[in-house]
Structure formats: C-alpha cells, structure tokens
C-alpha cells in the first residue's frame, strides 16, 4: 500500500491541474474550423474555372465567416492570457520549439490569405457591399484577370489551412507532461475535425439559404432580414451533396484518428493507459461517448448518408451536430488532458 501526501496547494495546480478553462477549447475549435474553411475555400477556388463569376459559399461566405470566427478565437485566446499587456512579445521573437510561437505567426498569415480568397468573388456574393465600395469590384477583376494569381491564392489557403489545423492539435500534442495529449495524432485529428466542422458549417449555410416552403414563417423572415441587405443572389446549392459527402469522409477519418489515438495510449506506459481510460470508462466517458462519438460523429454520418441517398431531405441537423461535436471534442480533450498526469508518488 502507498499513501502519498502533497503539502503544496498552488491555485490552478492543486489538487488537480486546471490552468486552461473555456477559452482554450473555444480557441482550438474556432482555429480548426477556420483551418477547414481555408482548405475547402482553397480547393474550391482551384478546381473551378478561374474566371467564372459565381456567388460561392465556399470561396466567399466561408472565408468571410472565417475572418470573423478567427477573430473571435483570437479574442478567446487573448482573454486566457494572464499577462495581457505583454502580448506583443509574441511578435518580437520566433521560438522554433514552441508550437504557440509557430501558431502566432501562422495566425498572421491566415488573415491576408482568407481575405484574398473572399475578395476574389465578393461582388457576386454581396452585391450591395460591392456597389458601395467599388474598390471591391476592382480587386476582384484584378485577381480574376490573372489565373495564376487565383491558383496562388488557392494554394496559399490550402497550405496555411493545413498548418493552422495541425498546429491547433500539436499545441496540446507536444505537452508530454499530460499523457492524454502526448500524441502526434492530435495534429491530424484536429485538422480533420476542423475540416468536418467547416464542411458542416458551409452545408448548413447552403441549407438555410435554400428557399423552403416547409420552414416556419418566422424562420424565413429572420433569414430574409439577414440576406436582404446584401442583395445576395441565391447561393449555388448544387454543391450541397458534395459538401455532405466531403463531411462524411472527414468524419470517418476523424473517427479513425480517435481510434489510433486511443490504441497508441492503451499500448503505451501506465500513465498513458490511465489517460485513455479517462475517456473510455472514466469521468469523461459519458461526454466522450455520447456527445463526441455518438451525436458528434456517428449520428451526422448516418443522417448525411441518408441525405446523400435521397432518403431524407438536407437539413441543418447534421451540421449542428458536427459543430457541437467538434466543440465538445476540444472541451473534453482539454479537460481530460489536464486531469491526466504522471505520478511522482513512487520512485
């Protein structure tokens, strides 16, 4: 029998580590979502005819939403800092071993890349804005007249999106002190979770923007209030099945990566095994199985499968489930990771 007593009582560390609250999971979720939006926007921009002018959910609405979401994520990160006045110190140095340093520089590149993608087709998506600010039309014309530039913007969005998505996972994955996080699988896992939430968001926007007789009147009224100011043309909804299909692929890969993460831990040291059990049958198991795996991955996979086979109509239900599942995944991993630990009781 071993009894261990620790007389330390530092706030945030004892009796259990709790240095990161809601801000970090929200930041990681929004960062992943924006990464996914960038990759989808980049791919879409590259595979469509570069000079085609369309109101595009992937290339305009997505990046514009990405700019807002990223700013919200950075605000959450800023709120988490306990020494906010020094935040500018991030940009006085580059620390190659620190994922957070990589992330702060990557975040700087995200804004111009997203903006360029959004501006390429902005006049079609939000004509009212383009009418007021003719510069938007000029910029769009300038970009579209140069196919190589369009491809460059697409490639930049894909590359920076991949870097951003992987960084959000490696931020935790490189912290070996917390066995649950200590896996490089977290990088691709957060990337694919980000891609699935991005595809779900775009799919949800398309579903909402499609005229629908069965929708309650007040919902239609609210939506028209939102879209009327922009005089937007209807979005091209032909891409909805592609997005649902892509989302299902991302969700399947995400599920496989969660499996790999757990297999890696279960076959590793006692500390890693204990960490995996926090999710599998420990205090976080109910949230993990019900909200992450069940409602966040399996249920939307099933619903979108039925949508794709034309058994049910496209609704925003799978989108909402995937978005909530992605958020809960970050919350549960950040919380359970802080609860996982090595033990110094024995030597």
């Amino acid at each position, binding site marked *: 029998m071993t009894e261990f007593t620790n007389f330390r009582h*530092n706030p*945030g560390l004892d009796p259990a580590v709790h240095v990161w609250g809601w801000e970090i999971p929200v930041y990681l979720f929004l960062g992943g979502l924006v990464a996914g939006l960038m990759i989808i926007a980049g791919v879409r921009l590259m595979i469509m005819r570069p000079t085609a002018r369309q109101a595009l959910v992937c290339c305009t609405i997505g990046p514009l939403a990405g700019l807002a979401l990223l700013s919200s994520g950075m605000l959450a990160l800023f709120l*988490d800092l306990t020494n906010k006045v*020094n935040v500018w*110190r991030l940009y*006085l140095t580059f620390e190659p071993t620190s994922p*957070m340093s990589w992330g702060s520089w990557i975040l700087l590149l995200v804004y111009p890349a997203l903006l360029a993608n959004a501006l390429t087709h902005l006049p079609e998506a939000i004509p009212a804005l383009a009418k007021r600010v003719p510069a938007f039309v000029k910029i769009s014309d300038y970009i579209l007249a140069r196919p190589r530039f369009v491809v460059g913007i697409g490639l930049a969005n894909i590359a920076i999106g991949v870097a951003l998505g992987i960084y959000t996972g490696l931020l935790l994955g490189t912290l070996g*002190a917390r066995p649950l996080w200590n896996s490089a699988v977290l990088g691709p896992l957060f990337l694919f979770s980000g891609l699935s939430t991005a595809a779900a968001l775009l799919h949800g926007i398309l579903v909402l923007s499609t005229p629908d007789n069965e929708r309650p009147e007040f919902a239609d009224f609210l939506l028209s209030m939102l879209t009327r100011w922009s005089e937007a043309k209807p979005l091209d909804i032909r891409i909805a099945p592609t997005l649902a299909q892509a989302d299902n692929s991302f969700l399947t890969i995400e599920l496989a990566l969660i499996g790999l993460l757990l297999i890696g831990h279960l076959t590793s040291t006692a500390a890693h095994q204990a960490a995996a059990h926090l999710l599998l049958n420990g205090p976080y198991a109910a949230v993990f199985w019900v909200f992450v795996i069940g409602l966040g991955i399996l249920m939307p996979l099933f619903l979108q499968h039925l949508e794709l086979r034309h058994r049910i109509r496209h609704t925003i239900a799978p989108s909402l489930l995937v978005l909530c599942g992605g958020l809960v995944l970050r919350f549960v991993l950040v919380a359970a990771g802080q609860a996982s630990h090595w033990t*110094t009781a*024995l030597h």
Partner: protein
Amino acid sequence: MVIDTRRCVGCMDCVVACKTENSVPEGFCRDWITETVHGEFPTVQLEIRSERCNHCANPPCVDCCPTGASHVHERGGVVLVTPEKCIGCKACLAACPYDARFIHPDGYASKCTFCIHRVEQGLLPACVSVCPTHCMHFGDADDPLSDVSRLLASRPNYTLLPEAGTKPGVYYLT
C-alpha cells in the same frame, strides 16, 4: 541540488525560507513537502521530500515558451522566467510534469530560481541555508570534486519522473 531523504524531517523550514527570501505571495509556494508512506505494518516506510522545480537539463517548459520568457541561465543549470517577457499563456505550466510552476498574482509564470540572486553572490539558496538537518546540498553536479558529485557517487539516489525525459537536476538520496 541533492536532497537527503533520510535526513529530511518535513519541518518546512525550506518552504518558509523561500517564501520570505523571494516574497512568494500568500497562497502560493515555490517549494513544498511531500510524504510517501509505503508498505504494510510492521515494515512501513516513510519518505519525506522537499520538492521544487527540478531545473531540468531538457526542460519542456523552456521549449514550449512562445516568447522566450522561460529560459536557461547563460551559465546553464538553472531554468528561469523573465516576467517582463511572459504573456501568461500557461503553456509552461501545462508542460511541466512536476507542476512546479504557478501564475503569480501579477500575471506571469513563477517558480523556484535556485535563488540565483544569492548564488551569484556566492551564497547558498535560502532553502539550503536554513535546513536544520543539513539535508540539502547545492553545487555543480558536472564538477566531479563538488560536494554534490561526491554524494551522488557514494549514495544511492534517484530523480523524479526520469521517464518523462526532462533530465531533472534535483537528486534525492535514499
């Protein structure tokens, strides 16, 4: 640093000395005592340890710091934080397997400094200098003639969590 667990009685003088020397705010501590009891009666063993930052040779808290606030002293062996550079991101708190750091009420990450301000003046760290049982020894483990090297060569010893790969610089004699 070498700490003799056979001499330590858990009086917490080191904790009080550190708090006084370094003006550690109320409710926080840079060093602390742990007690481990193992075995079954009548062969019960009690081990008392004075713990602190291990000033690791492979410090994950330094690697993860995005601003360079966490750093190794220019002469090596001591891990320090520059409060003016710290943004309070808490990555280093999450990266330390020993939970040796905390966020100072003024917002920056704080922890044991091996009383570097005293050591630079040729003095011993406050905890070492007050220990009534002389269980703590401070010196250069890379110097084979130092007090600590001789103790490590002559007595069985261990470090905390060597499996975490941090190469701790605080050794416990058994």
